[in-house]
């Protein structure tokens, strides 16, 4: 049985879009998104809402191996109509699970100098996500510094992120999701270790 998506697509996807917009405008802020959605496990409602809202038939979606064959992939494909991208660098959106997939920011589309917007927006599922001491975020949209903590964090996350940030205006934006919450690290912010 295929699970249902938004009951009222126009209103609910606009609400989710608004939450995503607020989250990307103030990096590190945690927004509620996807309440009421019941996507097939292990997909979280926030990740499902983000992809249902953003992806459509014109945006290739890349799904990491831990989610690719399952019901979650079929659910996203059915409800968005998005084609599955053959490789991460051809994807407009990507979905992965930090617990089971390796995060490699360089493998995604970075955009081009003329069209930096043609980069991949990565949706990464986390086990926990909180606004507490962990990593420090600074940059546009952050007053001073903000703190964010998510787990699992890949060991080389800080160096990967620094490489991603230094390529600005190219680079990927990272949507972190957990349950019905999400936070976004846009390519413009600097992330440093908290301690």
């Amino acid at each position, binding site marked *: *049985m*295929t699970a*249902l*998506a*938004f*009951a*009222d*697509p126009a209103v609910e996807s606009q609400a989710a879009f608004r939450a995503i917009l607020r989250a990307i405008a103030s990096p590190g802020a945690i927004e509620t998104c996807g309440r009421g959605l019941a996507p097939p496990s292990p997909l979280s409602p926030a990740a499902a809402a983000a992809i249902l809202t953003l992806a459509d038939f014109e945006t290739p979606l890349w799904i990491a191996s831990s989610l690719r064959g399952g019901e979650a992939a079929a659910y996203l494909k*059915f*409800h968005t109509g998005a084609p599955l991208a053959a490789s991460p660098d051809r994807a407009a959106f990507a979905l992965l699970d930090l617990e089971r997939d390796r995060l490699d920011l360089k493998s995604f589309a970075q955009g081009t100098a003329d069209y930096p917007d043609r980069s991949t927006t990565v949706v990464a599922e986390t086990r926990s996500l909180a606004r507490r001491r962990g990593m420090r975020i600074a940059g546009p949209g952050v007053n001073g510094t903000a703190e964010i903590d998510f787990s699992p964090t890949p060991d080389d996350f800080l160096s990967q992120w620094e490489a991603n940030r230094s390529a600005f205006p190219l680079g990927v934006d990272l949507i972190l999701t957990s349950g019905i919450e999400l936070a976004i690290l846009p390519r413009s912010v600097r992330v440093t270790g908290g301690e």
Partner: protein
Amino acid sequence: MLEDVSAENEAAARRRAMGLLARALSSELSGPLEQRFAGHGARELKPVETGLAMLRGRAGGDGAPFNLGEATVTRAVVELPGGERGYAHVLGRDAERARLAAIFDALWQTPHRRRLVETCVLEPIAARLEAERARTSAEAAATRVDFFTLRRGEDDP
């Protein structure tokens, strides 16, 4: 018989069925659904939506394609308990009609129900459409003018 029809025939048959369902009247769908398939158990996978579809045309059948204009189309997707998915796109904004057409598309895909869908739903629709077409062409035929050219002979040597 049904087993050896190729996938292509199957697709053509489904196209025909969906085409007939898309042109059905509400009453042609709701009546049989209540009488014959009351326990269908279909549920909507996506809320029924109304939107616009671009109609494309070609002049003379082989000219360059052009956009003719947009038509209002209502779309429905349903799923039966057995997993068959029915789709319907109907002209206009009648959500109920689109939902019924999608249910019949799903029922048509269930092998043991196809026969019944064909005889109680599709055939009456096809018969009505054929009668309408015959009536229109009869009306047109009544006003037909045949032109004859008489040979006048002056071109002859």
